[in-house]
């Protein structure tokens, strides 16, 4: 539309995006741009709306406010969180990679993600980690200008996780595509990301990973560096178990911080 076909123009522009479903505000005021060949990571606690944000940007869900502009003819590769294939569908990995994409060389596509042995494997028999690689191979096989990955390391053991992120960075270099990925752990993706968006219903903070990891809004959400992996229980819950949106509201006490202070004073 308004975009000239200039390679420095953003791939996607979102302006004031919001989504409200049945009176619940899932996302609000999301404004962002995705640049070519840039890796952007969306982090946030469970239920923060990370996947919802991806869906809005991909055009799978329509926003209730604001708008998304994609570069005309933008070719997107998408890696869903999981592929729950019915066990009654007989399909090999090789066939899956070729389905609907022209001129895919299965061997090359699988070699690219370090899984050349899977070509003849049945899709329904794959382990979590193998499935992630196959999904990544398919997303990359379309030679996308933008690669969108929803929790690409789900079901992958901790050792394999950093490998997957290295792979993503490699793909970016090879395909020169923009990458938008969702993760719930900044420390794992830090090395392989250019920019971080910390989301909890809205964008709490954003910027270079180092910078975000020191941001008060980030620390409020995820706790400090002493306990980088315990974030899942660090956000507040109300009585019904909903995550309370206290992301940028520093007036709340923080359970994790309080615990630490208590520990320090006892020494």
């Amino acid at each position: 539309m308004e975009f000239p076909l200039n390679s420095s123009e953003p791939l996607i522009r979102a302006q004031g995006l919001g989504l409200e479903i049945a009176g619940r505000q899932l996302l609000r005021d999301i404004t962002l741009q995705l640049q070519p060949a840039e890796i952007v990571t969306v982090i946030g606690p469970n239920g923060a709306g990370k996947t919802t944000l991806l869906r809005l940007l991909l055009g799978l869900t329509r926003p209730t406010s604001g708008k998304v502009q994609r570069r005309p003819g933008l070719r997107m590769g998408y890696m869903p969180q999981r592929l729950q294939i019915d066990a009654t569908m007989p399909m090999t990995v090789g066939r899956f990679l070729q389905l609907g994409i022209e001129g895919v060389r299965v061997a090359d596509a699988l070699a690219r993600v370090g899984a050349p042995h899977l070509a003849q494997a049945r899709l329904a028999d794959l382990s979590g980690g193998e499935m992630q690689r196959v999904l990544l191979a398919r997303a990359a096989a379309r030679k996308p200008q933008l690669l969108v990955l929803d929790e690409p390391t789900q079901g992958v053991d901790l050792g394999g996780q950093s490998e997957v992120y290295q792979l993503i960075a490699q793909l970016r270099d090879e395909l020169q595509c923009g990458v938008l990925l969702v993760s719930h752990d900044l420390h794992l993706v830090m090395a392989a990301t250019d920019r971080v968006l910390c989301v909890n219903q809205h964008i709490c903070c954003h910027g270079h990973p180092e910078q975000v990891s020191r941001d008060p809004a980030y620390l409020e959400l995820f706790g400090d560096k002493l306990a980088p992996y315990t974030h899942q229980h660090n956000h507040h819950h109300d009585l019904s178990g909903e995550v309370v949106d206290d992301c940028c509201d520093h007036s709340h006490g923080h359970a994790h911080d309080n615990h630490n202070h208590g520990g320090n004073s006892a020494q």
Partner: protein
Amino acid sequence: MLLHSHFLWYALAAGLLVALVSGPLGCFAVWRRMAYFGDTLAHSALLGVTLGFLLHIQPTLAVGASSCLLALMLVYLQRRQHLSVDTLLGILSHSMLALGIVTVSLLDINVDLLSLLLGDLLAVSSQDLLLMLAAAAVIALLLYWLWPKLLAFTLHEELAAVEGVPVEKIRLALMLMLALLIAIAMKVVGVLLITALLIIPAATARRLSQTPEQMAGFAALIGGISVFLGLSASVLWNTPAGPSIVLAAGGLFLCGQLRKARD
């Protein structure tokens, strides 16, 4: 002498025709877990017959039209998803069947309820056969034309959508094919047993197949064999044709399971 009677050949042709398209379509019903969906459409067919009778429309045409209408409605309802789809379909399916039966008896329509419920394959006329041929041809063409898109849609709807597959149109096409199939399968196995003809051959084919295409082909073949066996039983022992066909399909499924257990 029996083999010279044309009604038998009509019955066989009609049964094989339906099996040919219900096989591949049944695979999608299995992969996408649409058994309940098929049930709902099938059970509503009775109401279509009554409406056709009131409006003086040929029954197959009437059922085809009413099933398509219902399929559109279901797609719309599914999108709103306030109730779980399972529950919604369960309610609709049996309410529609009951409504159909009650209307038939209330209106005192001169139809054989049992043949509508269980099929009346041996009464297929040449006109029926032509209509069935037309509907089967439409389904077969659509399946052939949309096959890769249908597969992508079945594997992961959102992935397909991002990759440019018009998922809503594909969903609609699948529903309409199913509605058409129900209109023509009603004559063969009746509204109560249509889902069986859809699901059982596909489920049996599963064990024999390495690719989706193989599974579709085997399902059509197994459906065809079931029709042949069922019809033969019906002629030899004077059993009702529709249930005999379903029983044959069930028997073949069981054989498949036993063979697997022995391996």
